[in-house]
């Protein structure tokens, strides 16, 4: 996946400046938990709570800006849950599970 850009969060006509994309990983959805294999680290990651919500949005390999917009609508922009989800997205980027194009 490359080159795609998404609408900005604020609804303006300017495209989001740094869209992020999902680097696909093998994963399994077990309902309340998701386990995925981090190929970069060679270990499994087990997600719960907001991680499950985030991954279900991320896994179809949509641009992360779109995922963030959906999270904001789902959890409420500025809520603790949204902050938790954003922190998890940052962690995924740090681990290489998400990447910037």
């Amino acid at each position, binding site marked *: 996946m490359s080159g795609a850009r998404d609408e900005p969060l604020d609804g303006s006509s300017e495209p989001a400046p740094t869209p992020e994309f999902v680097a*696909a990983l*093998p994963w*399994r959805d077990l309902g309340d938990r998701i386990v995925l294999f981090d*190929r970069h680290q*060679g270990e499994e990651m*087990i997600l719960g709570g907001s991680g499950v919500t985030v991954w279900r949005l991320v896994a179809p390999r949509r641009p992360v800006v779109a995922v963030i917009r959906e999270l904001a609508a789902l959890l409420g922009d500025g809520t603790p849950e949204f902050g938790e989800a954003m922190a998890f997205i940052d962690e995924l980027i740090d681990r290489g599970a998400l990447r910037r194009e």
Partner: protein
Amino acid sequence: MNSSTGERCDVSDLPVNPRRVLARLLVPAPASDPDPLVPVADEAWTALRSAAISERVVPALAGAVADGRLAATAEQADDAADLWLERMRRCLRIEGRLLWLTDALAQRGVELRVLKGPASAHLDHARPEDRQFGDLDVLVRGEDLPAVFAELEADGFQRRFPEPRRGFDQRFTKSVSFAGEVEIDVHRTLAEGPVGHRIPVDDLWRRAAPFEVGGVEVNALDHPERFVHACLHTHLGPPPARLSSLSDVARGLVGDVVDLDEVARIADRWRVGPVVERAVATAIVECWWPAEIDAAWLRPTAPSLLDSVLIESHRQAQVSSATRAVLATLTVPGLASKCSYLTALAFPERSYVATRHAGQRQRLRHAVRQLRSATLGARPHGGTP
């Protein structure tokens, strides 16, 4: 229990046969929802979870608990969920190795087909979470085996058993196992010995079914060939077949994806029709079947005497490896190949003998004992060729 209607399992079966209960959880739940079942007693739960582990169908147990087909206490539900998680962790680690191997072999220009577990999980089950697997099976062309072995050994994998004689793998072997972070079985064909030599290996490369693992496209056998393979794997071994294997056959029957006429054509061409028919009948009897399944599958035709002997040599645990080797020469194509095959097994290289017997002489004595036992009807000693 009336399996023709696919009704839910009866927990009263549990103390008697947990396998029977689990087999009924392998196929989709019926549309009608009977009364909820009470949670099973701890003793029965222990038997059920042990059977699910040994039969490699933990997802069926955990899934049935999760969707309410099998009632469970909160503790049992947690237990099932944890078991499921552990199995899926293992599956993902195996898929990680699949991605590594796919990439490494692509760089060498070697094509592969994914067999059994991962392919069935992604292509034949409703979702990959429903199928667990414990190792990685891949098919490569005979001429590519050395390159694949080199790649595995360079990454620390160790071959379990040496080659009987140089060239045996590329011409005759079914598969070669490697131990490492995960077990990887590298196949040349789909079945061993007496029945396996009938399969024209070029047929396995004519087409493929792609699926995606972690964003990477990999290839499995196409649906009909995959179904025939599931049948071979289910029926060509000492019964009872492991439920995870039976699940692959059952899923093919209920998934409405497999063209059974095409399956029959392939089975005829490979001369494994009786194996397929019996595997299907076993799956139907042990699991559940939808009304639209052709009842003719339940009445397998009688195999020829030769087919019976060949098939039973796979299924009867007391049949010696020496007897199997002799029978296998019947199906190895070509006189020269038959001679090479027998020679390789009768006079293997020293490294091969060392893993099994104290020496060549002991090996020959062992083989003679096995054949005499088979001829006289006494129970021989086990062993591999």
